[in-house]
């Protein structure tokens, strides 16, 4: 749920990075955090276990600049990818304005990819959202690994509705900002429709 503050002239939107465990959601946020000017970002918070697995969420507030005199602020969240954290994932989807689904390109993670995508769809439905109507983009991460499967296969399995999709190597930043920009644009476009 976007929050528009006419008094302080700010638009606040929430974007959630979703995907199976170890697909690189946190790495996306870490790269964005490291490459963003200090004045445009807040502190990145990671609620993680001792082994750096996301326990509840990562949070990164970003300012993208002004649009018609309104400051645009995006709050980026990741969900914990591991299957048994489903209750936490549902909570984080509350009030979401845009979703990035991060898929893992490795052949052996395809089952986990599909399970996570189905989980995203059903968790959104539970909150009254429809993935087909929400600002939504797909990122295929780990494109540099030797066991990565072809884009055509990934698209067929994970992007049946042909939303914008991006190839990525998150630790090197490849595709990270393209993905963020695409979802941010869709969110703002949706805001215009609602406005």
């Amino acid at each position, binding site marked *: *749920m*976007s*929050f*528009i*503050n*006419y*008094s*302080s002239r700010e*638009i*606040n939107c*929430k974007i959630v990075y979703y995907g199976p465990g170890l697909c690189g959601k946190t790495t996306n946020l870490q790269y964005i955090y490291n490459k963003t000017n200090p004045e445009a970002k*807040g*502190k990145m*918070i990671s*609620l993680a276990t001792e082994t750096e697995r996301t326990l*509840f*969420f990562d*949070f990164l*507030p970003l300012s*993208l*600049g002004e*649009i*018609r*005199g*309104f400051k*645009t602020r995006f*709050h980026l969240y990741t969900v914990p990818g591991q299957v048994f954290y489903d*209750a*936490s994932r*549902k*909570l*984080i989807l*509350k*009030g979401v*304005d845009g979703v990035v689904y991060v898929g893992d390109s490795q052949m052996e993670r395809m089952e986990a990819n599909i399970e996570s995508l189905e989980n995203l769809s059903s968790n959104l439905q539970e909150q*009254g*959202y*429809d993935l087909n*109507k*929400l600002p939504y983009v797909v990122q295929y991460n780990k494109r540099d690994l030797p066991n990565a499967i072809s884009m055509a296969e990934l698209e067929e399995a994970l992007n049946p509705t042909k939303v914008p999709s991006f190839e990525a190597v998150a630790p090197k930043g490849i595709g990270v900002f393209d993905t963020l*920009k695409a979802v*941010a*644009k869709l969110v*703002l*476009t*949706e*805001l*215009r429709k*609602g*406005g």
Partner: protein
Amino acid sequence: MIQQLVMYEEELTQINSICEILHRDSNARAVLVIDKNGQAIAQAGDVQELDVTSLSSLTAGNVAATGGIAQLLAEKEFAGQFHEGEKTNVHISIVAARVILVVLFDERSSLGLVRLRVRKAANELANVLDVMVKKSASGSGQPSVFSEITDDDIDNLFND
């Protein structure tokens, strides 16, 4: 499907005033009003040294998790939480199922006083929120500037 919460000058002035009074009457260090999705709405008191954005997000996460526990226990919600620190204590309450009222206080105040003052402030806040939600839903108040946003405006954000 984006439901927007819209804050106008009039309601923000009222919410700020409720925060100021609560801050003063409860001898608190700071008072924050946060929406349930983690966006900071208003604050009063000694907030310069606080990371309000992070506090807002984590508090909302905390309230959401506690709400999840409530559901599992067939409770509607836990309306309040209290965290006791060595120096700073945190009183968290949910107002009108919509926003979170946070009071940070130290030894200059007490839990009893904070609870008492929060009760009054929460009632007043609920009334303002009612008006705000009705305005957001009807789109009245001010004409939306967003219907005039062009593709160029959106593209310009990313030309860096």
